[in-house]
């Protein structure tokens, strides 16, 4: 479905997602409905394990959903293949991660230029674009430094510059201030707000930082995989595991992979463990 000015830039309907750790199901999203208009500065708020990151990942095509619909810029991102999603992200979506996630063997300038080159721009043009965006995020003088030679705040600015360098229509930021001190965090929020207003780029940010929530043009609260704006915690419907996490039989291949898989705990598992115990 082609995008037009009146249609939402992100359209999510009845989105379900369940994680499995061994044979234990962990429902992450329980029928999310959400629409974002072009140019919004939306913050997803909620405790750890509420489903914020999962929702962002699905919108960004990094993860698939079990059920539901997720249209981004009119395209059904859930129906795309891996390569198609990569291309779609490159053209339309910028990412800012909690842990900055810069390519550590490239300088700040090269990190930003990398995505431009992926888009087909020449190396020279890409480096010029990188310089421009590094100046925009006020670290133009640090372009030749490698990530390990930058502070957390500086790295996050490089990440923002990298996200903006491809001139995406949407920027997805997952806990962008979580690893920053409050002053640096506030500066980053101001920067993102300024870019949102000057460029009209849509921001979808997951965060439980009060400063970020305060900056939002719209705040969406998530709890246990539900949007809880219209409910309070008591009236929230109970989670139906049967609906969200239908019983599945693992294939022999999956069992084998699971048996040999290195036991390395992810943020998500840590979060889920924390939320189950709290």
């Amino acid at each position, binding site marked *: 479905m082609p995008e037009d000015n009146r249609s939402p830039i992100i359209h999510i309907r009845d989105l379900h997602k369940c994680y499995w750790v061994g044979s234990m199901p962990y429902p992450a999203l329980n029928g999310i409905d959400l629409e974002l208009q072009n140019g919004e500065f939306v913050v997803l708020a909620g405790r750890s394990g509420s489903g914020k990151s999962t929702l962002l990942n699905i919108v960004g095509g*990094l993860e698939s959903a079990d059920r539901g619909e997720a249209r981004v810029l009119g395209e059904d991102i859930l129906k795309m293949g891996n390569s198609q999603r*990569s291309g779609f*992200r*490159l053209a339309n979506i910028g*990412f800012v991660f909690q842990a900055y996630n810069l390519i550590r063997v490239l300088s700040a300038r090269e990190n930003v230029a990398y995505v431009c080159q992926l*888009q087909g721009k020449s190396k020279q043009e890409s480096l010029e674009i990188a310089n421009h965006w590094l100046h925009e995020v006020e670290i133009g003088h640090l372009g030749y430094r490698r990530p390990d030679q930058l502070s957390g705040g500086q790295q996050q600015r490089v990440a923002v510059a990298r996200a903006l360098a491809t001139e995406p229509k949407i920027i997805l930021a997952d806990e962008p201030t979580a690893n920053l001190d409050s002053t640096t965090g506030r500066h980053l929020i101001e920067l993102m707000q300024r870019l949102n207003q000057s460029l009209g780029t849509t921001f979808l940010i997951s965060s439980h930082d009060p400063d970020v929530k305060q900056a939002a043009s719209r705040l969406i609260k998530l709890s246990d995989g539900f949007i809880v704006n219209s409910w309070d915690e008591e009236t929230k419907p109970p989670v139906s595991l049967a609906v969200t996490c239908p019983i599945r039989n693992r294939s022999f291949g999956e069992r084998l992979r699971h048996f040999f898989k*290195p036991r390395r705990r*992810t*943020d998500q598992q840590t979060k889920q463990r924390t939320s189950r115990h709290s």
Partner: protein
Amino acid sequence: MVSRLGILTYVALAVRNLIRNRRRTTITLLTMMFGIATLTLLSALNDGWLSQMKTNFILSFTGHLQIHAKGFEASQNLRDNIADPDAISRYMDTYPEIIGWTQRIRTSGLASVSGSSTGVQIMATDPEQETWVTSMDQNVKTGVWLRPGMNKDLLLGKTVAQNLGAKLSDRVILMTQRPSGEMISEVYYLRGIIETGAPQIDRTLALISLDGAQQWLQMQQAVTDIVIRADHHDQTDTLYRLFVQQLSEQVYEIMPWQELDPMVRQWLEFSDAYGLIILFVVILLVLTEILNTMLISLHERQKELGVMIAIGTQPHRIFLMLLFEAVLLIFVGAVLGYLIALLVVMLLADGGIDLTDYANAFEFFYMDPVIHPQLTRDSALKILLATLVAALLAGIYPAWKATRLSVSQALRIQ
């Protein structure tokens, strides 16, 4: 959207990744260097002693190529002789691959010294020409080599002389048949004892001069063998083909050295196969080590690769980058290992590895107790090819695995 990230960018990224992870890179490089150096050295030792064995065999008796009258090798009958050897000898100066040739008569007979007798292989040769073809003159450990014009000189193999109890200057009676079947005998004088190291030769050889033998056997100019020495083993096939083209196969049989002693040929083939098995095992060990290192590297870099895919890098480009990394690492390690091995081979080439303490083990099959490693072009190509295949195999699996990475899970890794 066509990415402008060319191959060079991925090579640069791969190089930076390797430099950045110095410890891992160093360990892998050392593994590669050690593996390839071992592989190359083993190969050089194998080639060295096989080559020595071939040379010793060829120079001890057979030459690279022999031309006989049709059927002689099977019949060993003097009636199957080359009546006009000069018709063949004229080719000898035509081919630059030939560095020496001689004519011989071979027949079986009996040698007797004061009452004791033993069966012998009587071989008559031109004393001067023979020195261009074989090293028999250098194998005379006691006494002297055949003297031109001295038709009563006789040399015996060491074991023959021992069995007969013959000493230098002893009268030795040789008995055999003329081509006509007539039994004849003649007195010779023992002038030297030959010790080739090949038991079957030392046990049977009775060597006399060709001129005297032709008169004794009434064979005029006829001979049974024309023995040719090539510049190198590798030229045997070329010469064989040339003579096959020139000489009628109805009249002559042309036999390369491999056919003259099937047992030696089998032993060489076995040694070659055994060498290949050892090379295969070493390659397998190297490959396993590299694969392990690459998989650990992949595991450590899941997050970084996840980020690259998340920001829009196509999975096939991740595949290429990791493959470059593996190939680059293996290539550099292989080159360094190869250089180390070449250096060792060069250092050992002249002096060789002296195994004289185990000399008894080298008495058979024309082996020398001092092994001179040598790296042949074939072996170098084999190693190069094996390294490339190992590089690709060790690189492809982790690279393919990276393309199947769950991006969201990779990004969650702390």
